[in-house]
């Protein structure tokens, strides 16, 4: 999955233009998802923007917030879309796990340390979450190579490592490179703030070429 983001701080008209741009780019195959980012930290406008995006965009969705309550309120409006939930960490895991289980959504757990990351996986599993994504919070392509390889090898030893890896990255050519490295090592979930049309086309051709 390659997702581009829409912020809930944007005006409605800008959101429509942004989604239109993402739809145009998606014709090549990437992106295939939109991530709605809860930059406002508030329940509103997050819920409204999630609803607006869901009405226009028919592909996969990702909801990104540090507040599980905001995610729960937004999910009520898009229960059938089963978006990936991003934002769970050691401080808010219980709330996120409850939401993910209730709405049957994949839950992305985040931690910079692998030991803590796998502990979060264990706790999420104990809470009844079945679909999990690992976010080791990689910041550059070197870290991406080393950490993705480590997790891939660990997945043969411990079950907590046997989930897809998420790469959360920013904009521009470096973001594309991060996406490339992660896709070459494993079939990652990539969430980028923005990628231009050439980057999206290149990534989609790469994915078709290596699968």
């Amino acid at each position: 999955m390659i997702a581009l983001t829409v912020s809930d701080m944007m005006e409605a008209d800008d959101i429509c233009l942004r989604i239109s741009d993402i739809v145009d780019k998606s014709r090549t195959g990437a992106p295939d998802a939109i991530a709605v980012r809860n930059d406002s930290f508030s329940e509103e406008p997050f819920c409204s923007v999630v609803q607006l995006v869901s009405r226009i965009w028919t592909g996969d969705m990702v909801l990104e917030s540090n507040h599980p309550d905001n995610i729960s309120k937004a999910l009520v409006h898009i229960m059938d879309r089963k978006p990936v939930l991003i934002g769970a960490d050691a401080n808010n895991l219980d709330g996120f796990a409850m939401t993910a289980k209730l709405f049957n959504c994949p839950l992305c757990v985040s931690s910079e340390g692998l030991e803590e990351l796998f502990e979060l996986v264990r706790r999420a599993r104990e809470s009844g979450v079945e679909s999990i994504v690992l976010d080791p919070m990689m910041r550059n392509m070197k870290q991406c190579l080393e950490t993705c390889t480590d997790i891939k090898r660990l997945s043969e030893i411990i079950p907590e490592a046997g989930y897809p890896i998420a790469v959360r990255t920013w904009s521009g050519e470096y973001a594309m490179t991060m996406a490339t490295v992660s896709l070459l090592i494993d079939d990652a979930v990539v969430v980028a703030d923005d990628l231009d049309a050439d980057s999206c086309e290149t990534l989609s051709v790469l994915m078709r070429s290596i699968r």
Partner: protein
Amino acid sequence: MRLPRTSKSYPAEIEELRVGRGDYVIGGARSPPFLDLDGARHRRPVIFGEAFDSLEGYHGSAAEMFSGRQTEVEEWAVMWKELGADGVCLRLTGDDSTELVKRIAARTGIPIMVSSDTDDLIKIAESVDDTVLIIACRDKEQSLELASHSNNHIIVARCDAGDPAELCREMSSRGAKNVMVDLGSGRLDGSLKDLRSRIESYRMDGLNGRADYNHTILCDVSTSWEAHGEEVSARRASMHEATLALTVMMAGADIVIVKGPGAADMARVYGEELADL
């Protein structure tokens, strides 16, 4: 939760080759590409830029990136040096190739790779003594022919299919002292999956000590331009080429040939970051 260590070590290393006047080293890997987890040597793959002595059939969008200097091969080679390429890959068709190669080697001081027809390559290999060239071969037959006339130069074992070790052994038996393998050209299409797999397997076999699998790997990604029509933007074509370069470097290529300066720059930067230089 205490995590098990996943580091691995390997019984063998990839061969190291000195090119140019001996001041450039290619290969020498002791781990999968760039992987510090397995004790990688902090050395990046080298990037060679293409220069032609004839522009017939050359891609128009690519030509625009060289500010007119592509019309004269010597100037073109110098431009690659100015752009920061590690070496230049000369694609020659003319009659005065030997002198041209000598002049370019003297003027640029960077390693030279040459491709041409068999007779020309033999003349070049036998006449050039003051720099170690890489002799690029278009097929297995040319690799075998050049192996008998290698002087001290590096001969590329072109093995798109079949067992590369068998070809390398045969080339050595004919007199080639230094061999580099080319497992196929890179294209951003369905063929990439197989090429990646061949490069990765060859590299891992080498690290695991399998005989005659320890040679350095060359990959030409300039062929990615063949997928584009003349109308393609240089940026898009360069992004495809750079992404392909990154793909083959992460698979295990030690030396990459590119067409565009954009891709050369990106590939070098990617290599430096991944090698932690």
